[in-house]
């Protein structure tokens, strides 16, 4: 059953030995899991930060909730940058015109936006010592994270789909999920015009 589904998927040319490719994809997978755990932990910090801002508004930029939040906004662009460097060794993950994978580009740009928003945010709070969620300086944090998540989803699904195609992971049984993997391998998960 597993082989049947694998054979039905688009077969991409093997440019490096299969075993080498599986090992490299799994090393990328390791970094992604570590960053996923970090991102999940920051979901807790969102509540910690919100709790602090409801009690003390904004006493200082240097509170534990901010150390945690801001350090992750620096760690994740660097981590995804490390993925981008290692990613060059896996031909299937190349983007259009042999450039960086589109999903990876979106992720790095999204998190870079959040990283620079730390500075924008501190400038704003130099004059306005409030913590209203909807003020403009907070917009780019949220938009950056959303862009980064969208790109990361496209990239991670593509890595997983290739592991399925190489027989290193179990394919999804749901035909709609299998179709999504197939689209990901063809670089068409989100749009047929953006490979």
């Amino acid at each position, binding site marked *: 059953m597993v082989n049947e589904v694998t054979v039905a998927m688009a077969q991409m040319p093997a440019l490096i*030995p299969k075993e*080498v490719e599986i090992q490299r994809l799994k090393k990328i997978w*390791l970094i992604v*899991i570590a960053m996923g*755990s970090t991102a999940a*932990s920051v979901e807790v910090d969102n509540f910690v930060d919100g709790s602090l801002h409801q009690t*003390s508004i904004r006493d200082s930029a240097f509170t534990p909730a901010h*150390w945690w939040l801001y350090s992750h906004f620096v760690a994740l662009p660097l981590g995804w940058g490390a993925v981008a460097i290692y990613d060059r060794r896996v031909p299937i993950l190349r983007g259009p015109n042999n450039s960086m994978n589109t999903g990876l580009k979106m992720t790095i740009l999204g998190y870079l936006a959040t990283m620079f928003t730390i500075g924008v945010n501190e400038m704003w709070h130099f004059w306005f010592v409030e913590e209203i969620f909807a003020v403009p300086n907070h917009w780019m944090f949220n938009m950056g994270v959303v862009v980064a998540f969208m790109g990361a989803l496209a990239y991670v699904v593509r890595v997983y789909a290739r592991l399925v195609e190489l027989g*290193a992971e179990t394919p999804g049984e749901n035909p709609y999920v299998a179709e999504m993997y197939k689209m990901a391998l063809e670089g068409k998960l989100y749009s047929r015009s953006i490979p």
Partner: protein
Amino acid sequence: MTLPKGFGSAGGGGGTSADVERMIGRRVENMTGMITLSYLAAWLATFGGTAAGYFYYPWAYPTPSGHYAFIVLTIVEAIGYIFCVKVMEEGTRKNSNGIVAATIAGTAVGTVLISLYVGN
């Protein structure tokens, strides 16, 4: 198969298993020790971070709240740790269930003890 530049014998031809090994470097299934140390470091850093909250900012971070965050984060990290080790070893003959079980049990007991006895 044709290998990338710098691998295999000169003048084309196939690569040997030694070439494949050289392209791989350290195999992911042999990284369990490093993954385990990373998990323990992350767990200790989580303790340090939450402790900084309730020792230095007790008016903003009550100790039970810090312990709650510590417990939730330990669970998040443990899931990531198990996922890392199991995915890296799947499809191989390697099995580190004992190491994983001992590490998870150790951090679980440590988390309970810290939550009971550390803090204001």
